[in-house]
């Protein structure tokens, strides 16, 4: 009996050890580790990867979804455990990785050749290397219920003052005017980026470089206003109930259920927010002061990069596939703005979004989205600062000063 127990426990132990050993081994098939940030269609993207794998049977996919690109990749880069195929944002983080040889330069791939030039600058490093292919062109804008606007006799506002009037009318009708999402980076994608674009970019057109050098002065009234605007919306009762516990998907779901008349969100959500039961249309976010020209957001979406390593050939294959023959799967699931010159297969781009982006392209001055230019270490500060301002714990000016300090510290 005891001998049996002994044998059993040794077997169990051996089994456990064997399993753990087996996890780290590799065989003839190439196990392509993919770490992807794609919060709105995680399951679908996994399916796309499987389609790619089925077309290349010797490749097996190990698919991980990640919440935040920089947070996930930074320790991996440091310890040499980089996944083969990764999501990467434009900006200094990726640039640093490619200049250090952790990511490969993809300028000569079929994917790069098929990509419009407008989305390459953010993905190009100081040494001139292209470290990633943009996942699309993106912007953020206001989605709204057309019928409600018609009933209330209002039309899309063109500047901040008109925006406040529109919200007041909606509130008067007993409805929630707009959804703001302060819990996570969504608010940075919307309120902060547009505030920054309209208040600060016109007098700081070289903001990319200023952030890099740490000379961007953000302890200003202009920056404080970026925070103050959201506080104003909340204080006047234009935002949804449960404001401070509304996260990315919560906000989206609220709009889809018709619980708010307007929603401030990204173009990448068009696939989810446009086909609602009620008719939804879009208009550019009116974060400009009346009389001033709007500065719209034209930014790149989280794209993909390939890590230097034994599987880089397969990584490039996947990259070319996603931006070539396999592009339509991705594009049609999201309906966002394509970055490829020649989308093979039928692609879906909602007419409303097309109208919007064509209009945006007419503006001379545009700005990027926050994560493309602020230091990686300050990213999680923006939602927190908004939360503190909304809680009344920091004045907008104090929030601006805190961010200014953190941005300068990060570059030291």
């Amino acid at each position, binding site marked *: 009996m005891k001998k049996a127990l002994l044998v059993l426990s040794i077997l169990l132990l051996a089994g*456990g050890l064997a399993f*753990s*050993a087996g*996890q780290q081994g590799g065989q003839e098939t190439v196990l392509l580790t993919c770490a992807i940030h794609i919060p709105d269609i995680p399951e679908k993207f996994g399916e796309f990867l499987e389609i790619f794998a089925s077309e290349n049977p010797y490749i097996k996919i190990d698919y991980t979804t990640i919440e935040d690109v920089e947070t996930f990749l930074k320790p991996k880069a440091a310890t040499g*455990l980089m996944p083969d195929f990764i999501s990467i944002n434009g900006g200094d983080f990726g640039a640093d990785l490619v200049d250090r040889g952790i990511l490969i330069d993809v300028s000569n791939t079929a994917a790069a050749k098929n990509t419009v030039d407008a989305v390459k600058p953010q993905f190009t490093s100081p040494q001139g290397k292209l470290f990633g292919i943009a996942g699309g062109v993106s912007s953020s804008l206001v989605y709204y219920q057309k019928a409600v606007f018609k009933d209330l006799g209002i039309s899309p506002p063109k500047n901040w003052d008109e925006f406040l009037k529109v919200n007041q009318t909606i509130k008067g009708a007993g409805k929630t005017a707009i959804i703001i999402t302060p819990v996570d980076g969504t608010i940075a994608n919307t309120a902060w980026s547009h505030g920054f674009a309209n208040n600060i970019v016109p007098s700081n057109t070289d903001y990319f470089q200023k952030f890099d050098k740490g000379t961007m002065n953000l302890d200003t009234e202009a920056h404080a206003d970026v925070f103050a605007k959201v506080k104003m919306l909340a204080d006047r009762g234009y935002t949804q109930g449960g404001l401070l516990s509304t996260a990315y*998907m919560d906000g989206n779901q609220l709009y889809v259920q018709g619980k708010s008349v307007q929603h401030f969100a990204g173009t990448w959500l068009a696939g989810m927010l446009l086909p609602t039961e009620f008719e939804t249309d879009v208009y550019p976010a009116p974060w400009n002061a009346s009389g001033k020209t709007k500065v719209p957001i034209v930014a790149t979406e989280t794209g993909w990069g390939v890590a230097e390593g034994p599987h880089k050939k397969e990584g490039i294959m996947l990259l070319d596939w996603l931006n070539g023959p396999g592009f339509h799967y991705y594009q049609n699931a999201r309906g966002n703005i394509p970055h490829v010159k020649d989308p093979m297969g039928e692609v879906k781009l909602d007419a409303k979004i097309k109208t919007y982006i064509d209009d945006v392209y007419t503006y001379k001055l545009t700005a990027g989205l926050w994560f493309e230019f602020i230091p990686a270490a300050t990213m999680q500060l923006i939602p927190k600062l908004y939360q503190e301002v909304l809680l009344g714990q920091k004045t907008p000016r104090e929030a601006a000063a805190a961010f200014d300090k953190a941005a300068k510290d990060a570059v030291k």
Partner: protein
Amino acid sequence: MRKKKMLGYHRRRKLLINLVMLLITLALLMPLWYVLNNAFKAEQEIVRRPLVLRPQDFTMDSVIRAFRALKYPARFLNSSIILVVSCFFLVTLGSAAGFGIALSNSRFLNRIYTILVAIITLPFQLAMVPLIFMLKAMGLINSYLGIALVYTGWFLPFVIFLYTGFIRTIPKELEESGRVDGCSLLQSYWHIYLPLLKSITGTVLILRGVPIWNDLLVPMITLTRSTLATLPLKLFSFIGQYGASMTRWNLVFGGTFVVSLPILIVFLALQRLFIRGVVSGAVKG
């Protein structure tokens, strides 16, 4: 006469206490019922009728979808392997150590024991950060063995405490008579003491096994490959993607239900053992 009055008083008091207890336990069960009945509903029904499950609303859809999305069988396997390996280490190393400490008369070992007991109170966070870097250096990230060793290092002091306390209650004559019969220490450990440790081992398994099965922090910081994720970790990343948002609640409920099912079944089946384990562990404290 007085006795009768006292009896009546007792009975009334018992009734009152029972009533209060009933209310309290019902209140406690409410959140569980909330999850249970909503795990078997479609999205819209959850908001419309949050506390009632009508036969016509019953659907396995949410549970099944959550089961698939979580890649449940693989996660269950991961959690199981980690549990088994960790418990194996804890029981073997812990019982051996308890044996050694309890049976030696060494002042040295007793001092070590005192230090071990003090270590029990130290927070995991104190070791957490360098531990992760050390695991990376040893190549034990993304391995069952690595996680098991983390749990072992962390929980061994407590397990040794339990075993030592228990073995100390076994009369020393047992070992002495074994020695007279010519048993080496190893033999007496194996043949004499180990069989006696069944009940305390049960306590150990429950007091440490359950937290290991349910833990989130350690897998979260030691695993980068999702294929190795445990049930709690996968549930966290799964819901984090969708957000505990309004219409995805059915998946949240389905997911939490299906993740909790194994431990619930075990608990329902072994209630007495669980409670006895906790109590005896507490008494040793």
